[in-house]
């Protein structure tokens, strides 16, 4: 799949933002006043920034409000609802913490749950697609949730929780990669089932000499040759380096570095998530 910057930013930033809001909703750290304002601001900038980035690839963003109508069947529509409900609940919690010095447990815990639910919904937009075998797996929501929680704990300064969560995210990431490598073979979809023309069939001539929307959007083969190296870089930045930095004696600069490394690692991981995913339509074009 084409790794569009808008979807990479959307999933990385909103995942991180909602992860931070989960911890703020649970009262970790128990902040009020100006400190709380800064924490909430970071959470909202990340979550909303990601959501705004997701509208960049829309052909008609002016009709985006219609996306609230089909929550019965569509994970993308549920994403719209989840985001808004999560942001409203967390805003109520934030008003209490920033202006009234109060830590309201009910909207906070509810908000944390809906934030987590929204990250799950984001992952289901991809995991529901049977046409992309690498994504069509329980590892996709597990990966999104683990990365979101690890990043949230890191941003919330919860080092004791962040270390195991970062290690967990790294472990889930490794399993997701290796499970994903076998997904196309296990899906049972081959050129033989795609054409019904028997086991020995190959593309002789594509429909048109030029590219089309399908090949540009769903048949992305550039950059896969560096996949192994990029996987190592993603893991190092996303999990290993932040864990090492958190285990060193605490310093704000080290904390900032850990966050920056982690975000960079998540972006690389998300780039791979899209670039390595093969859509079965590629079979019709003799490309995967």
């Amino acid at each position: 799949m084409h790794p569009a910057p808008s979807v990479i930013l959307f999933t990385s930033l909103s995942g991180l933002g909602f992860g931070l809001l989960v911890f703020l909703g649970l009262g970790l750290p128990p902040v009020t006043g100006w400190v709380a304002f800064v924490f909430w601001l970071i959470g909202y900038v990340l979550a909303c920034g990601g959501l705004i980035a997701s509208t960049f690839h829309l052909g008609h963003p002016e009709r985006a409000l219609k996306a609230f109508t089909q929550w019965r069947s569509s994970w993308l529509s549920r994403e719209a609802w989840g985001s808004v409900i999560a942001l409203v609940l967390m805003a109520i919690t934030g008003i209490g913490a920033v202006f009234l010095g109060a830590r309201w447990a009910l909207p906070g815990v509810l908000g944390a749950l809906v934030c987590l639910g929204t990250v799950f919904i984001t992952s289901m937009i991809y995991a529901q697609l049977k046409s992309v075998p690498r994504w069509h797996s329980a590892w996709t929501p597990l990966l999104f949730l683990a990365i979101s929680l690890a990043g949230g704990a890191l941003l919330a300064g919860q080092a004791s929780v962040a270390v195991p969560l970062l290690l967990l995210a790294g472990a889930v990431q490794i399993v997701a990669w290796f499970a994903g490598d076998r997904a196309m073979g296990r899906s049972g979809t081959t050129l033989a089932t795609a054409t019904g023309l028997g086991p020995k069939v190959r593309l002789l001539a594509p429909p048109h000499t030029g590219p089309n929307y399908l090949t540009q959007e769903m048949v992305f083969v550039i950059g896969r040759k560096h996949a192994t190296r990029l996987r190592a870089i993603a893991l190092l930045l996303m999990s290993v380096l932040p864990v090492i930095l958190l285990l060193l004696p605490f310093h704000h600069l080290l904390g900032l570095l850990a966050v920056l490394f982690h975000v960079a690692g998540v972006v690389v991981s998300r780039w791979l998530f899209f670039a390595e995913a093969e859509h079965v339509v590629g079979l019709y074009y003799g490309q995967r």
Partner: protein
Amino acid sequence: MTCLPTTTDRKLGLAIDLDTCVGCHACVISCKGWNAGDDGAGLGDADPYGADPLGAFLNRVHTFEVQPEDAPAQIVHFPKSCLHCDDAPCVTVCPTGASLKRTEDGIVLVNEADCIGCGLCAWACPYGAREMDPVAKVMRKCTLCVDRIYNDALPEEDRIPACVRTCPAGARHFGDFADPDSHVSRLTAERGGFALMPEQGTRPVNRYLPPRPRDRAPEVPMLTPVAEEPTGFLAWLDRALEKL
């Protein structure tokens, strides 16, 4: 509404004959012509006369080579358009309700006024039946020529999809798959028509009729050689050259 109907009154679709298709691409052009000339938003092309044209098509013809173990390779032209699936994954993923499957005839359509151009439906389709219009920025797909088949202003023989009407080889058949006595249902039963990617669980309506077995050249024994050893001038030349 993007929830799928449990059943549809009719299942309109195409039976495409892979034995008869000659790969002329007339259906591709006819489809493009009918839909691009439509009074609606058309069927756009980006940079159509430039160096890097990119256009939306609702029907494309691939060409495959089948390599049987014991016979010469065989060329199969393979037209592909929307299969109007009963379990259409493109419909349920749509966040706005622009994507729909009609209860009356099973046709899968996009309501362009509601489409936000997110592209998720094209991702969900395993067949590559949906393409984004590069000009109008909305999703396009085969409508089964819904603006022809019910159009009383057209002569009766034209009230079929443009691709079917134009096919010079008669490789495309339009009809109701819910009716077991329809032309397409009988063709499918007689010829062993099959669905594409059944393991994807989309339950497509369209059926493909397989290529018929090809004639084989009869087994004829090789002629026995009339002369194993060269004679005459050539034999002398052969011997002379050997000695050099």
